């Protein structure tokens, strides 16, 4: 089936079209979500939200980009929204701890206690350090680095998802790598 016909079926709200959409994209969307949010349950919830959003906003899809790129864009935005919310909670928790109120500890440790099923047990400690470091990067650098290194997308696709030029994606990637090196070096220096 041509993509255009498929999109028309999606716009018409046909149930079989959404079934096919989920079959085709569930793995990719889930992989994107879990690369930003290293927790299986939350990543699955986010992936579900992505499909619900696709369902509600398919009429806004003008076909200027590929359907997959549009879906990746939604997934990335959902994940960033989730991370922002988590970080706000973390800051709020920190403020509460200053004020002397008790807060649930697990909320402050979200990005240090990861539950990524694809991480080998022997790499768990290093992965936790790495994901914590990635989370310290500025948002644009984090997005580009995650899509490229964790998700394995090409620069061209990252350009389409982020809406940035190829040169700025390359520059963001370079700075992200450099910053990660610095963060990790500082971490290991303080550790030893």
């Amino acid at each position: 089936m041509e993509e255009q016909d498929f999109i028309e079926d999606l716009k018409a709200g046909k149930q079989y079209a959404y079934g096919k959409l989920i079959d085709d994209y569930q793995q990719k969307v889930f992989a994107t979500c879990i690369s930003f949010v290293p927790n299986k349950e939350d990543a699955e919830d986010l992936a579900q939200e992505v499909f619900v959003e696709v369902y509600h906003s398919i009429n806004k899809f003008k076909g200027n980009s590929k359907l997959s790129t549009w879906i990746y864009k939604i997934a990335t935005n959902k994940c960033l929204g989730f991370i922002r919310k988590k970080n706000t909670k973390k800051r709020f928790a920190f403020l509460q701890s200053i004020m002397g109120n008790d807060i649930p500890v697990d909320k402050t440790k979200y990005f240090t206690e990861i539950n990524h099923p694809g991480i080998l047990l022997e790499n768990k400690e290093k992965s936790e350090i790495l994901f914590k470091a990635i989370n310290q990067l500025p948002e644009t650098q984090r997005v580009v680095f995650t899509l490229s290194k964790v998700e394995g997308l090409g620069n061209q696709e990252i350009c389409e998802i982020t809406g940035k030029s190829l040169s700025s994606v390359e520059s963001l990637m370079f700075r992200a790598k450099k910053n990660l090196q610095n963060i990790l070096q500082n971490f290991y220096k303080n550790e030893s």
Partner: protein
Amino acid sequence: MSVFVSKNNIKKNMGKNKNIQDKVNSTLNVLDALQTPQVSPFFKDKTMQRMFQNKEEEQEVWSWFTPKIQLATLVCVVVLNIVAFAKMKSSSYDENINDFAETYGLTISTENTFLN
């Protein structure tokens, strides 16, 4: 002697830095060993349910408001507006107010006031 000590220190520091760099590299290499996790087997069912559940609820709420009824409602509203507008134009506002005031005894008579 001091030259020997500082050389030793430099060697020690270089070894330490190399060790840190090795640790950084091995941490970054974790990404290469990252396996793509599989989505849970019930993901599709759960997502489909979530998508179409909302739609059914929406449909149930507004299902009685069919396009025919929508059109009829629109025509009624337009006709009512036209009638009301025509009525307003035909009668003068002051006249109506005076009638209303007289009917309910709300007129102020200046003849009976004690202040004059």
